[in-house]
């Protein structure tokens, strides 16, 4: 054992995380030292620069030979190709979220965030903070810290590291959810709900870790893998630990029956934050879930596959059926996000892995690709929700959207493209994503689960199509208008639109990209 530690080597091995973490710290410093009028702009630029720099460094690492990655088998953070691939998605979508958070024109010259989070809603204090044009520019700091946690979470090769990362990513999110400028009580309620339920989920996760540790004698995923079946303790300890960890992980992904927070939090949180949560949290949580299941508990898959299959069906049913009853666009998108989590879980339950003799498009490739297609439509879809306003207030009631596609055809067509992508109609990204996740399940021998998923996606398609029907076939109503946005939101929408269509027509390059990231690195493979 080499006792001298090569710190520089360790840091460069996780360079993208280091960049984001340093950026977050710098951003915190900027909050402390910069005068108020400079803060907002500085923070926006700083966040974008940091995220893009991290993205570039991840890309450089990707292009280097995979063998140069993670030589250290005992590393607590495993930078393998799936981790790098998901990091790139995470950083890209975080950058888009930053652009949404930077938007001011839509909100009438102010940000989407409350001027003073500590002030009681409706109080004199709040009004004077508004008059003084105070702004919570630390939302960007919070976002960067959250991204740091997310990156670590999906690359953790060690359960303790994973728990720490879970908390780093969650705490800023709880705060961000409570900072909406309008309808603050709803926003604060959402934050509190998210925090309490999230704390419960974390506790379950932690207790699961303890049980798994008791069984395997290690927190390290690869060691746990080698201990499955070789421990002196009963296997039921491991299974109990596995199930409790699943509670924590599935909560973060928003899988039924742990999905109840999703609609409330997505509706209450400021819309840019909702977009960030809907995509980035999902990427991190799904990445972590796959890593734990595939790397540490691959030998236990006969036990967790049925559990995940049932959860996936339940999630798709809840997302599709309850989604049908929604009359609020933001809530509808929340249920949509639950449904999509269900599709992702179908692929994870299928466990198409090289270890299980599947060599084509594996579950990890399929899920990564799906997350790309999902994110590329979800973030701009939320952005478009912010654009429909009546007297400055966001119109989220579907009835307020009646005929908006006839008043403003460009808006209608773009939103329709995102809806079609969610519904998985060909020539949009969503179809190829759906193909990928169900193909993974089919290859893993879970063809029937793919069939169930596909049929439930029909139910979900009803509400996406209803949005289109309301926008185009109904008579326009007075009041709600599509507001002009600043370049920031426009960039997000245009990128999302182009991405959705390009990925739908020529998905080849992206699919090859993620096909290369088909398997997690693990002990014995290096």
């Amino acid at each position, binding site marked *: 054992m080499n006792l001298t530690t090569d710190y520089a080597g360790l840091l460069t091995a996780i360079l993208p995380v280091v960049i984001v973490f340093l950026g977050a710290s710098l951003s915190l410093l900027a909050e402390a030292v910069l005068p108020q009028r400079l803060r907002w702009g500085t923070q926006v630029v700083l966040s974008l620069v940091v995220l893009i720099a991290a993205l570039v460094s991840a890309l450089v690492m990707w292009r280097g030979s995979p063998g140069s990655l993670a030589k250290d088998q005992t590393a607590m953070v495993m930078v393998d190709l799936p981790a790098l691939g998901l990091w790139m998605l995470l950083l890209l979508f975080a950058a888009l979220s930053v652009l949404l958070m930077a938007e001011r024109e839509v909100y009438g010259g102010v940000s989407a965030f409350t001027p003073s989070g500590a002030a009681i809603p409706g109080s004199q204090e709040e009004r004077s903070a508004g008059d003084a044009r105070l702004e919570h520019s630390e939302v960007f700091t919070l976002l960067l810290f959250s991204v740091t946690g997310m990156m670590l979470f999906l690359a953790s090769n060690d359960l303790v590291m994973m728990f720490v990362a879970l908390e780093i990513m969650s705490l800023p999110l709880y705060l961000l959810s409570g900072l909406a400028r309008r309808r603050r009580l709803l926003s604060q309620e959402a934050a509190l709900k998210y925090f309490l339920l999230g704390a419960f989920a974390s506790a379950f996760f932690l207790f699961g870790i303890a049980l798994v540790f008791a069984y395997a004698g290690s927190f390290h995923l690869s060691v746990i893998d080698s201990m499955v079946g070789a421990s002196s303790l009963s296997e039921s300890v491991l299974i109990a630990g596995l199930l409790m960890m699943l509670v924590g992980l599935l909560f973060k992904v928003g899988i039924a029956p742990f999905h109840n927070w999703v609609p409330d939090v997505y509706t209450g949180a400021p819309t840019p934050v909702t977009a960030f949560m809907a995509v980035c949290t999902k990427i991190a949580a799904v990445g972590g879930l796959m890593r734990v299941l595939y790397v540490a508990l691959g030998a236990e898959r006969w036990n967790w596959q049925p559990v995940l299959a049932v959860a996936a069906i339940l999630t798709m049913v809840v997302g599709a059926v309850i989604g049908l009853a929604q009359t609020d666009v933001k809530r509808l998108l929340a249920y949509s996000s639950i449904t999509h989590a269900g599709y992702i879980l179908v692929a994870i339950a299928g466990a198409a892995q090289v270890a299980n003799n*599947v*060599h*084509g*498009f594996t579950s990890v490739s399929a899920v990564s690709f799906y997350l790309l297609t999902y994110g590329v439509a979800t973030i701009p879809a939320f952005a478009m929700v912010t654009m429909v306003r009546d007297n400055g207030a966001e119109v989220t009631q579907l009835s307020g959207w009646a005929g908006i596609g006839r008043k403003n055809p460009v808006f209608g067509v773009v939103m329709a493209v995102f809806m*079609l992508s969610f519904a998985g*109609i*060909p*020539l949009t990204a969503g*179809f190829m994503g*759906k*193909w990928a996740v*169900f*193909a993974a399940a*089919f*290859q893993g021998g879970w*063809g029937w689960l*793919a*069939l169930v998923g*596909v*049929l439930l*996606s*029909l139910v979900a*398609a*009803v509400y996406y*199509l*209803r949005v289109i*029907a309301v926008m*185009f*076939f*109904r008579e326009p109503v007075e009041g709600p208008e599509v507001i002009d946005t600043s370049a920031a939101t426009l960039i997000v929408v245009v990128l999302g639109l182009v991405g959705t269509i390009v990925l739908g027509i*020529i*998905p*080849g390059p992206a*699919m*090859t990209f993620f*096909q290369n990231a088909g398997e997690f690195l693990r002990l014995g493979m290096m």
Partner: protein
Amino acid sequence: MTTFPWLTVLAVLPLIGALALVFIKGPRARTVGLAFALLTLAVSIVVAIAFDPGAGMQFIEQQSWIPAIGASYSLGVDGMGLLMVLLTTILVPVVMLATWDDPDTTGGRWTSQTFFGLTLLLEGLGLYVFMATDVLLFYLFFEATLIPMFFLIGGFGAAKRSGAAMKFLLFSLAGGLVMLVSVIGIYAVTSGLGNPTYSLQSLQGAAAAGLFANPLGKWLFAGFFIAFAVKAPMVPVHTWLADAAEEASPGAATLMVSVLDKIGTFGMLRFCLGLFPEASLWATPLVLVLALVSVVYGAVAAIGQRNLMRFVAFTSVSHFGFMVMGIFALTSTGIAGSVFYMFNHGLSTAALFLVVGYMVKRRGSADIAAFGGVQKVAPVMAGFLLVSGLSALGLPGLSSFVSEFMVLAGTFAGHPWIAGVGTIALLLSAVYVMNVYQRTMTGPVTEQVARTVHADLTSRERLAVVPLVAIILVLGFFPRPALQLAEPVGAQAVAALQAHGVTDPKPQIPEGQN
């Protein structure tokens, strides 16, 4: 064989046209749209002239598309593909001409410019469906055609059009999604063998070698078949058609029934029979019975309709039953007849829908009871209704007779009972067509008709339907050109099935002279 990508040009032209209509403003847009449709027609005629009927798949193009999953951008047409392409390219300008400015003159609808744009979009996507020789590429466009159709129904139809559009889309999507599982299954099977492919040619080769001769093959077959059965509306999954046709505008209904629904029978022949021969044989008895039920039920239901658009829709259910029957008779005559039928049905149904559309536009109602004695007010319109109706009932001398006869003869050779019962529908078709003609056109002119129907067909309206009637007549007396395209398809399909014990009994008729 030329290296010029004729088929890509053919499919992309209308798409460019659709894009152009987004930017062009004013009444000029319609002319531009029609020009693009005519240009596409011209290209398709060039392709048809250069096509060699005996040489199988032609004008092949192949490009790498999604190498990760073995899907490629590959196009090609055989006799059936070419007939369908021609049907599409002929009907689009006809529909445009027949519709022209209707959407603008009836209030509360979208503009005719939008109608033309969506029609061109639908044409481009539909052409890709008929020309794709890669299963995933086919699927992609198969589903994509639903979206312009959805807007064509929902944007332009009658009062309850929004619901009808939704019903249309959900039925088709349900079928399509079941098929998606089968499409994915093909990938899982070929990928499991180490070499994922969606190429029709490689899959057909592997299928002939028994790749799908297992229970999974039956499931995959079922996925494809259900989707195509919804598309070519077969009892019991036909219920969407009548509602969609009733609420859609006549132009949209024409495109839906004459072009889009053909994908169903087209797909049954190309994918069900082509990829899953064992499963097709296994399913034949059930399919034939369902086809027979469609034939008879469609005809009986057509007799009972009170709405003209629904009436046409149910005659189509009956006719689609014939096509499916011909395909699953598994004889070369039956299949060739079925392919020819697909083309003829497209023309005669288009004529029927358009003429009915003219009637509805004048009278303001689609109820059969709202008409009476129209013959005296609008003799030309009555004449067109009679000719297209006679074509629908398969009168000798009109093209549909030839194909209907071939289907029945081909079916009779292998399944005399099925064909025997099927002939009942010939009788019923005479009843439903003459019944409708009698009730709407003959007799004294009713008061309401006298008040609303002032003018006979305009020259534009005539110009739209005349080509259809002309082709129906010409192919009725001289079916050779179309049969040259259809017959090799039948022979080839049956030849592929002969390895699985299918014999090809020739009906006792001199071929090609009926």
